[in-house]
């Protein structure tokens, strides 16, 4: 890394020797990293800039020259692509496309509004001769306006993580940042070329507008094309897993460079490429490659961002400034005003078309969160000084705006949002139980939202999905490898549990009935405040989080881990509850192996008495013999199964456990003859029906097909377990069975 920096310094300063200070640069921000993890992102940006300032000061003091400034080529070719790639790869595509209209509206119209507004008002200010700015032409002002309106809402996203923000808002801000970068660059190039032309005709303006569309759409097409090529390539890489991550990075960078080569928008290209790749490549590459890709991408983008901020700090110090109170302060003022106005006006218009309108709080967050960042910084350095004699003035203004937004707005946004959130009710000492109730309601609400399929169906998306399934997936995805992280997680648990239970018998995390029924009669003594605090703390730490539909984007971490851990625990618990109920209620049908072969799913622990029970009850003797053998095979078979089974496997496994538990409860009652006096002869007749439906199709399907959530619905050519209508439901399933004290002989 220090070689790179040396090269950088040399190119800028025409071959002077190395700056010894820079050797410390890569090492110095590493210790910062560790302490920075504990601070929020906004303060991190501030610290980075301060570090840069410090360095710049050192260099300036030592060398009496302006420190090396970031070369624009370096920025656009090396530092920017990783950031955009990271953003595009982790973009939640479904949410993005659902809100695409609004995002597009804000990004395009909003940026145009900002750019032109700021440009024209600054031009107005420049006309006032008292400020000494009259030599700045309208075009130059417009250009300046376009580059200063490049909003970089990354810092706002960091704030979003802690506030449970409306997901719509999150995707709006996120999507706007991506599209808006591209538009800014297009506008910038447009105005720059206008500045360099001597006369401008109307046709040129139209050409400019047309150019915008060509550039944008062309970039997207290149990105998509290369994304497909990447997906296709990874279809054949299963023998060379180690270099799979390379393809992802290679192709995305290729798309960027190709687009730039044709003077199209590289940013749109790399974003489109990343989004396309994300869908298909994920399914082709191995789990380890996938993890590598994710982490490496985060690493690259973190490093790039850090470097950019440090350079900003470094470049601030030095002689390339020209201070003009009027220009700088009015720039800042206009940025704020136009952003707020723009957001407000645009929201009023777009709310008419939206199903879920944006509230005032949302608008405030969008407007106040319009922080400027590295893009406008680099763009201003790109200005050719021949055309822009007052370039230094622009640089100063941009730096002031960036500093203001990053430092002041970045730090104050969170308190302001919290202030807006304050409810009217006064906050007394909250009860311990309140946390529980609140979380309870949230879980219920989320659950019902999931049942409703809250986001609904969309004609175009369904059409695309059909096309996708029919052609694209067949072409681009290697067979047999559908995967989802939860599924693979579950799979790992399965194996672990199989081994555990094989070794040590039933391990149950369900609270035993004994402890549940332990109850001290009499008064519960009031707890001291410290105990209450402890309780509250325990609760806050341990209550499960609500599933967020989209994982909030964080450039510096992958948020999946916490959710996975939670999902893992919940799934373990459910499996345990199934097994408990099965074990206690003597499930019968589940033990029937498929007639075809002995391969089985891990269903029950080895040390159960079920095989005997089966022999006793089972009328179809041919199957009985298999059951005990297949118990042995259960563990090994599970281990033999591919590491990533389809989600369908998962769901069906869950599914096939539940109804049998219901059935078994029925049959237990029936066998006891207690509840409804049905004879035993009804059992065998009803038994085979569901079990065959369960077992066979699952085992003989070699390819599980692709599994998005919607596809789950399409894949059921399997016999569904229809509960035999004769059986009457005695009890509702699940926990009730578990909690009743078990006195049965099973």
């Amino acid at each position, binding site marked *: 890394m220090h070689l790179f920096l040396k090269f950088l310094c040399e190119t800028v300063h025409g071959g002077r020797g190395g700056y010894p200070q820079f050797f410390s640069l890569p090492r110095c921000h590493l210790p910062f990293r560790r302490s920075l993890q504990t601070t929020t992102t906004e303060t991190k940006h501030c610290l980075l800039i301060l570090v840069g300032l410090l360095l710049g000061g050192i260099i300036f003091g030592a060398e009496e020259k302006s420190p090396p400034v970031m070369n624009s080529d370096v920025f656009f070719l090396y530092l920017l692509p990783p950031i955009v790639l990271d953003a595009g790869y982790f973009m939640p595509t479904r949410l993005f496309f659902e809100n695409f209209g609004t995002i597009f509206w804000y990004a395009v119209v909003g940026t145009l509004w900002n750019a032109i507004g700021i440009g024209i008002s600054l031009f107005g200010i420049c006309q006032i001769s008292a400020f000494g700015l009259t030599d700045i032409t309208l075009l130059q002002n417009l250009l300046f306006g376009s580059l200063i309106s490049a909003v970089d809402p990354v810092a706002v996203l960091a704030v979003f993580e802690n506030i449970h923000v409306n997901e719509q808002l999150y995707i709006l801000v996120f999507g706007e940042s991506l599209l808006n970068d591209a538009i800014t660059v297009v506008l910038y190039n447009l105005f720059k070329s206008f500045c360099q032309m001597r006369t401008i005709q109307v046709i040129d303006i139209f050409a400019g507008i047309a150019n915008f569309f060509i550039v944008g759409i062309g970039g997207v097409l290149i990105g998509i094309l290369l994304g497909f090529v990447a997906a296709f390539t990874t279809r054949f890489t299963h023998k060379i897993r180690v270099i799979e991550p390379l393809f992802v990075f290679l192709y995305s960078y290729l798309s960027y460079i190709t687009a730039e080569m044709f003077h199209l928008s590289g940013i749109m290209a790399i974003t489109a490429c990343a989004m396309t790749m994300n869908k298909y490549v994920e399914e082709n590459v191995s789990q380890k490659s996938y993890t590598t890709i994710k982490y490496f991408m985060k690493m690259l983008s973190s490093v790039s961002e850090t470097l950019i901020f440090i350079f900003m700090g470094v470049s601030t110090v030095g002689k390339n400034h020209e201070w003009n109170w009027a220009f700088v302060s009015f720039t800042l003022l206009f940025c704020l005003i136009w952003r707020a106005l723009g957001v407000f006006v645009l929201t009023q218009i777009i709310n008419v078309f939206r199903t879920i309108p944006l509230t005032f709080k949302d608008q405030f967050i969008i407007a106040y969160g319009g922080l400027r960042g590295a893009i406008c910084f680099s763009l201003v350095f790109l200005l050719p000084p021949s055309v822009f004699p007052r370039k230094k003035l622009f640089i100063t203004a941009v730096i002031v705006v960036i500093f203001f937004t990053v430092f002041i707005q970045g730090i104050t946004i969170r308190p302001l949002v919290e202030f807006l959130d304050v409810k009217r009710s006064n906050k007394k000492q909250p009860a311990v139980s309140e946390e529980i109730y609140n979380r309870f309601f949230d879980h219920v609400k*989320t659950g019902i939202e999931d049942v409703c399929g809250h986001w609904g169906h969309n004609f175009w998306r369904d059409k695309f999905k059909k096309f996708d399934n029919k052609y694209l997936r067949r072409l681009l995805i290697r067979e047999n490898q559908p995967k989802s992280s939860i599924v693979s997680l579950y799979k790992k648990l399965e194996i672990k549990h199989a081994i555990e239970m094989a070794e040590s018998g039933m391990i149950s995390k369900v609270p035993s009935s004994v402890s549940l029924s332990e109850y001290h009669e009499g008064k519960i003594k009031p707890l001291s405040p410290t105990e209450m605090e402890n309780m509250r703390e325990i609760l806050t730490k341990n209550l499960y989080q609500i599933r967020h539909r989209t994982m909030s984007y964080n450039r510096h971490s992958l948020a999946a881990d916490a959710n996975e851990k939670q999902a893992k625990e919940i799934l373990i618990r459910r499996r345990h509850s199934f097994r408990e109920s099965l074990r206690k209620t003597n499930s019968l049908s589940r033990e029937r192996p498929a007639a075809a072969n002995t391969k089985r799913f891990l269903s029950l622990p080895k040390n159960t008495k079920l095989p005997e029970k089966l022999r006793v009850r089972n009328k179809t003797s041919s199957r009985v013999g298999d059951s005990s053998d297949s118990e042995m095979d259960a563990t090994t078979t599970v281990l033999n199964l591919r590491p990533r089974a389809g989600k369908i496997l998962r769901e069906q496994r869950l599914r096939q456990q539940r109804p049998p538990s219901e059935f078994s409860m029925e049959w237990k009652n029936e066998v006891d003859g207690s509840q409804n006096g049905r004879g035993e002869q009804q059992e065998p007749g009803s038994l085979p029906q569901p079990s065959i439906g369960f077992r066979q199709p699952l085992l003989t399907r070699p390819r599980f097909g692709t599994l998005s959530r919607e596809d789950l619905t399409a894949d059921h050519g399997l016999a569904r377990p229809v509960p035999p209508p004769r059986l009457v439901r005695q009890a509702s399933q699940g926990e009730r069975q578990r909690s009743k004290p078990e006195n049965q002989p099973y």
Partner: protein
Amino acid sequence: MGSRASTLLRDEEIEEIKKETGFSHSQITRLYSRFTSLDKGENGTLSREDFQRIPELAINPLGDRIINAFFPEGEDQVNFRGFMRTLAHFRPIEDNEKSKDQNGPEPLNSRSNKLHFAFRLYDLDKDDKISRDELLQVLRMMVGVNISDEQLGSIADRTIQEADQDGDCAISFAEFVKVLEKVDVEQKMSIRFLH
């Protein structure tokens, strides 16, 4: 999708559901298409497996309870009316409803009915009380594995103590309502249904 849904759902039915639950026409059709997409057997009713097929419910700690809440006592199939009836509890309370006729039956999405729905999620044996056991079960479902049984027990005790007024060491519905009087139940138990 839309056309198929509306041919299967007759207008009179939509009107009835509208009256009973208060959903709008478009909301009902939209939810109907969701219903049919969940209904794999295409027999007009949903069974528990259909609900379990929703992956997000599998990782919801209260998933089983929520699914149970859809099914009326003792049945394992729920038709569209029942589905809508349950979902109606989550309709947001609109201001103009508050002043509607006080003589008619209480709308399904009133605060009291919402609370009743939540109460039923706790109270499995339907004795109109949340006993310590039931509370413990729900707590255990909602909480990670790092909490020991004793800690959980004391939290449950504390919860009951805070709510219990008649000293029976269980939470009745009235006590439940009282504890939650400061909680904005209308907002927490309402979903913005898309129009």
